[in-house]
């Protein structure tokens, strides 16, 4: 064993308090759903973790009624200062149960424990703390006089950050006085149902939060329900368009946080070692299952070779494997379906003529894993430069001038995020100004904070989450 080799340091799965069965949370109680139960698996081992009861279309109606009743009778009447205290309680309980939530999240999602522990769960708690404070200060949000809640919010979240996306949705909805019917993703329902327990622990009035596990049909019936006032969706652009079509012509307020194909632009004067860390974080964080992932690397031609060399070396040191091991950098792909989608797009890169390099890291035999992959000689017309891969696959393109970088970066129907690496301040600000994206990270990447609005331009969706701007999504102003 060399001096820099790692010994396994797995977090104990017992901490997750895994139960054999989980049930939908409706009107303040866990109930038997009328849908077909689903088995949620550990994507790192393909073993079944638990059986989860799902909602049926009729359960959706019951949940919306419960949310409406809670809205009319309790939540919309409660002073903001009182609502705030429930949110503060929830935030504290997330912190207190953070280790349990982190391990459970890594088991169900496949993400490395160091990410669920240091990023997902603390940021989820931070969202509740942040929004708790807004509940009695909405008159100061600058969105107009007399801001009023919308009513019942239907929320549909993805599998890439199950608890964090729940927090992004539920915290602002409750702070602004709305009640919630939320559907977690089919493959990652567990932390949402532990969150339901936290709502009970916090003595949140029944019906204020309802959580209905299920597949796309449940999401659809939430979207179509006549007594839902607002729909918030995070997920793919294709499904987002479908939802926008369904909501068309109704009074429902809609916000969409959809896909992306972010350009991460590296200029020749960038601190290259720092930039390489940012590139790696930008695309390999959370196995690349990030809507704002820096999946298109644009490198200035004069440093392209040097960057590629440093990048390959750095990527080859990433450790792939057991998500519960504290040394793991890259965990499991969330599902067999997603793995096959990644493989398909990677094959298209090969056949369209890009040059593929794959990290020589060992890949476990069981579970859904995909070794970090970097494509060079990528042309803008290739599928791997245009389509969201949602996996640990980076496409590298080059440019000569800042104008060319801007043109290439903006050459996409998406517009969620972008990265800039340069030491020149005036160029950072000029680039930030030119890039058509909702979040621009300069000399950093993948930073998230409840105080900083997040969301997209163009086909990456509309509406923002976080900050003062994000409150508008849940207010009648």
């Amino acid at each position, binding site marked *: 064993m060399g001096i820099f080799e790692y010994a396994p340091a797995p977090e104990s799965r017992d901490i997750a308090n895994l139960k054999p069965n989980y049930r939908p949370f409706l009107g303040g109680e866990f109930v038997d759903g009328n849908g077909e139960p689903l088995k949620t698996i550990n994507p790192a081992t393909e073993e079944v973790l638990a059986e989860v009861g799902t909602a049926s279309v009729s359960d959706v109606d019951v949940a919306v009624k419960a949310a409406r009743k809670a809205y009319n009778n309790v939540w919309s009447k409660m002073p903001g200062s009182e609502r705030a205290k429930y949110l503060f309680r929830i935030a504290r309980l997330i912190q207190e149960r953070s280790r349990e939530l982190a391990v459970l999240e890594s088991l169900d999602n496949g993400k490395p424990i160091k990410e669920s522990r240091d990023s997902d769960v603390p940021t989820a708690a931070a969202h509740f703390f942040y929004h708790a404070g807004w509940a009695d200060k909405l008159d100061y949000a600058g969105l107009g006089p007399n801001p009023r809640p919308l009513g019942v919010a239907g929320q549909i979240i993805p599998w890439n950050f199950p608890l964090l996306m729940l927090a992004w949705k539920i915290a602002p909805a409750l702070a602004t006085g709305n009640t919630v019917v939320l559907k977690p993703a089919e493959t990652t329902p567990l932390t949402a149902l532990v969150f339901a327990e936290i709502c009970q622990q916090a003595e949140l009035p029944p019906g204020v939060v309802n959580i209905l596990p299920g597949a796309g049909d449940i999401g659809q019936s939430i979207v179509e329900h006549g007594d839902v006032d607002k729909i918030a969706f995070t997920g793919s652009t294709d499904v987002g368009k479908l939802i926008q079509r369904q909501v068309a012509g109704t009074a429902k307020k809609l916000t969409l946080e959809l896909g992306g194909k972010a350009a991460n632009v590296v200029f020749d004067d960038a601190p290259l070692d720092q930039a390489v860390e940012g590139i790696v974080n930008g695309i390999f964080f959370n196995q690349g299952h990030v809507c704002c992932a820096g999946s298109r690397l644009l490198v200035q031609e004069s440093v392209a070779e040097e960057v590629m060399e440093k990048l390959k070396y750095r990527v080859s040191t990433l450790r792939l494997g057991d998500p519960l091991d504290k040394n793991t950098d890259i965990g499991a792909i969330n599902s067999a379906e997603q793995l096959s989608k990644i493989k398909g797009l990677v094959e298209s890169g090969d056949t369209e003529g890009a040059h593929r390099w794959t990290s020589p890291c060992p890949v476990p035999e069981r579970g859904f894993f995909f070794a970090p992959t970097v494509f060079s000689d990528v042309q803008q017309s290739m599928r791997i430069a245009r389509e969201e891969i949602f996996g640990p696959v980076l496409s590298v393109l080059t440019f000569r001038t800042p104008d060319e970088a801007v043109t290439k970066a903006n050459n996409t*129907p998406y517009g969620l995020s972008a990265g800039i690496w340069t030491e020149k301040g005036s160029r950072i600000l000029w680039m930030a100004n030119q890039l058509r994206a909702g979040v621009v990270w300069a000399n950093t990447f993948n*930073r998230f904070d409840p105080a900083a609005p997040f969301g997209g331009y163009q086909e990456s969706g509309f509406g923002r989450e976080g900050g003062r701007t994000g409150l508008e999504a849940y207010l009648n102003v």
Partner: protein
Amino acid sequence: MSDRISVAKTYKLYIGGKFPRSESGRVYPVNDTKGKFLANAAHASRKDVRDAVVAARKAFGGWSAATAYNRGQVLYRVAEMLEGRREQFVSEVAASEGVAAKKAQSLVDTAIDRWVWYAGWTDKIATVLGAANPVAGPYFSFTVPEPTGVVGVLAPQQSSLLGLVSVLAPVLATGSTAVVVSSADRPLPAITLSEVLATSDLPGGVANILTGRASELGSWLASHGDVNALDPTGAEPSARAGLAREAANTVKRVLTVPDAEPDWTDTPDISRLRRYLEAKTVWHPLGV
């Protein structure tokens, strides 16, 4: 009344700063509310919509990059010129809407004042809606609102000038560019507004005004891949769901508008400005 034969005017479209006829060659008669013939207006087609979107996209780079102060100056100059054409607008609004001269005068005055109100917003809206974000880490993070892009506007059918100004000025104030379909039956004030815009300092293509039928052209705007937002105010309420469905194919921002045309004399708020702005959050590390 003299015996002089008046000079009849040929009305045209306003696209890219120029006044072309409809490529379709179509015109339609415009009458006053009592059915008396006023003029023939150009009847814009799908191709005219596409030309106008191309012009609006081309103009977006320059208009959105202009300083907010400069945009404010340009828009204020438009208001000055509206004031200069006040009498013409009053007679056209009176004929188009069938209101008495005094009422028409008051509507025109409100329209001019509304334009001034929006002109003053250009260099303030970013302060009001932007933010310095107090993030939990060693980063400087700020959020600025930026213009959405090309906006398709179906102007109100009833309020021929005040309504038009109320839906067009906020688009321009944000730095977005516009393709407007005027009121079908009351297009004359829109045509005169085009002439004002053309002789003001507004760069060609920033505002494009088409006379024609929202029922025919709305769908082409809603489905156009290079339009970023849609204001369906001038569409029939029964047609709005269909337009919104078409707009969903490119995730357009679609304004929610009331079924009945609002009272445009009500004091406006910033909600229309907000709908044409995208919040951009920028992060940079702090360090030495």
